[in-house]
């Protein structure tokens, strides 16, 4: 008796959830994706899923950073670039090593070495940025924090992008492929094994991140800091450690995406621009600081990018998403999935 009642209430609440803005958006997205695939071919869904996964990871890092430390990171694209560059060097170096010593285990492990090495490099960069840059500003002044830190991240982005140009030149540094496996055919579309590998890794990363944030002590500490910094201090959370960790995780996520997409997007100094505005699209559309929704938002924005490119051509990639965001912000300023965006009266 109670079981049926509970089941009914669960059904009603799910139905009510679907009718909310979030639910409508998700349903609409799935419908549009299916319609697009029927119209133009299933590569739309494949590309959406692969690119969407990567934008999801990047947007997660951005949302995490904003939610926990109130840092609007404009150097996020540069961390993506750092990851891509690190992966390029690791793969090139291991390629030479394998050529010199054929038959070693390195040949099989190279993709993992590349991606994980790049992730670690990215997180180191992030930690360094926190200690050398953000912490110094935090020690000195916390007024107008968001805008000031935004300008700081601009400075970091300028240094990283031009440092890349200075040290490694403007050429394109790419790899042909990660894995030596043949392409797989799903639903009559030929998908390269690289994309499947990268997508699976991305999903694993998201699941690991979610488990970490929900169940581990440090994860809960991070969430506590994002809710209330003073309260977290009062229960004895070491704020310094959490801040370094958050920045390390955020930049690790960006570097991971950069490394994973190396086979699709080669590394060059200004490559950070596209991932940057894509992740900012996602974060603003779903509501700033909302990490969970950033995952879904990544796929939504990826779908819109792909549909825009397919139906309108290459160059309108900025225009349509921008118009969409303006529309969404007019109707629902806190983003589709909601966040605690304060109006102009609470800066």
């Amino acid at each position, binding site marked *: 008796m109670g079981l049926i009642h509970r089941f009914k209430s669960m059904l009603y609440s799910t139905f009510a959830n679907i009718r909310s803005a979030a639910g409508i958006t998700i349903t609409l997205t799935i419908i549009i994706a299916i319609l697009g695939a029927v119209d133009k071919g299933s590569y739309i869904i494949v590309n959406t899923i692969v690119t969407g996964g990567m934008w999801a990871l990047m947007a997660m890092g951005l949302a995490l950073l904003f939610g926990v430390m109130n840092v609007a990171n404009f150097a996020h694209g540069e961390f993506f670039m750092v990851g891509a560059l690190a992966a390029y060097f690791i793969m090139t170096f291991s390629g030479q090593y394998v050529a010199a010593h054929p038959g070693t285990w390195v040949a099989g492990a190279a993709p993992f070495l590349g991606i994980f090495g790049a992730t670690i490099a990215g997180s180191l960069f992030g930690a360094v940025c926190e200690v050398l840059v953000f912490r110094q500003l935090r020690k000195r*002044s916390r007024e107008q924090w968001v805008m000031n830190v935004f300008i700081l991240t601009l400075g970091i982005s300028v240094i990283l992008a031009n440092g890349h140009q200075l040290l490694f030149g403007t050429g394109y540094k790419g790899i042909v492929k990660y894995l030596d496996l043949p392409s797989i055919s799903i639903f009559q579309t030929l998908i390269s094994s690289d994309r499947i590998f990268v997508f699976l890794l991305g999903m694993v990363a998201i699941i690991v991140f979610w488990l970490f944030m929900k169940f581990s002590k440090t994860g809960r500490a991070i969430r506590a800091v994002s809710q209330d910094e003073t309260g977290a201090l009062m229960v004895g959370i070491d704020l310094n450690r959490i801040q370094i960790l958050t920045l390390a995780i955020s930049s690790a996520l960006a570097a991971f995406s950069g490394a994973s997409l190396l086979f699709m997007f080669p590394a060059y100094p200004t490559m950070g621009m596209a991932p940057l505005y894509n992740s900012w699209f996602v974060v603003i559309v779903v509501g700033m600081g909302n990490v969970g929704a950033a995952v879904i938002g990544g796929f939504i924005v990826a779908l819109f990018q792909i549909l825009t490119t397919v139906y309108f051509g290459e160059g309108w990639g900025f*225009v349509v998403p921008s118009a969409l965001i303006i529309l969404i912000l*007019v109707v629902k300023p806190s983003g589709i999935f909601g966040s605690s965006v304060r109006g102009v009266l609470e800066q």
Partner: protein
Amino acid sequence: MDKIRRVLDWAGITPLGGLTLLLLILIPWVPPFNKEYLIRWLVMGVLVGAQAIAFDFTSGYINIVNFGFCAFFGLGAYTSAVLAVRLGVSPWIGMFIGILPAALLGFLTGILTLRLRGIIAACMAWFVGLALMGITTKWVKLTEGPLSLSCPTLLKTTSNLPYLYIILAMMLVVYIVLKWVVRSPMGLAFKAIGQNMEAARTSGINPVRYRIINFTVSCAFAGWLGGFYAHYYGVLMPDVMLTTKTVEVLVVVTIGGRGSLWGGLFAAIPFVYGTELVRSFFSKYPGINLVLYGFFLLMVMIYYPGGIARVYQKTLGQSKNRVVRWLTGRDNPSLRI
């Protein structure tokens, strides 16, 4: 002499500022500096400085970084250029017509986004800028897109000197108008909103309205300066709307000191000179000047948040020396700086 002083007081220019202005006017006639390429650099420097003044009006007073600033600049540039090329409008008039789309777009962006937090408004200005750059690139029929649009120049001469005086005059207009606004009750409202929105609201200031006014005025001036840019270079590409150009203006404003209108101008001229010098001498190391400026930006933001203007205030501005006090206009009540 007295009349000059009264004009300067009305304009809000200290004697030191007046002397610097005189320096800028006379220096192209002095032998080491009268080479054409140096005058050209000076024109570029003053142009970036004028942009910095308009940018600082928003970022220094209501504390919103207009991250799409160069798109409004480019909008004014393209409007003026397209009118000149397609409809034969004279560049002098086109420059002023270019103000209209820039101001209109600024106003629309403002009413849509300035209700929200500053960071979201900054992001939205950025997206508007990106969208504008995309439209400019794709609408080849109107703007020639990446193939670059050639438009008539303001004057028939190839010398840079007349352009220097034109841009100096334009920069002065921007500075005087914005300084006048800043010294008026509206400027006080801007400062209040930038510092503490709650207190401003309690005093009866409507934050949204003042933010929108500020943003629109800043974008209007950006459009006007864009018109000059189009008819000075004679060649226009969508690259003029790149975010990196906005970042350059932002770096200059921050190093010069946010909240003082003249700081950006003071930092812009060495910035442009430095960029060009590095480009010619260190061409083996491309991008090193921007790395250096990135470091400067970080240093200034963390350790010297007031920039050059604050250093000036702390040293010269508080000096007890009578000559310095006269130069900086501290004993002059009608200056009201």
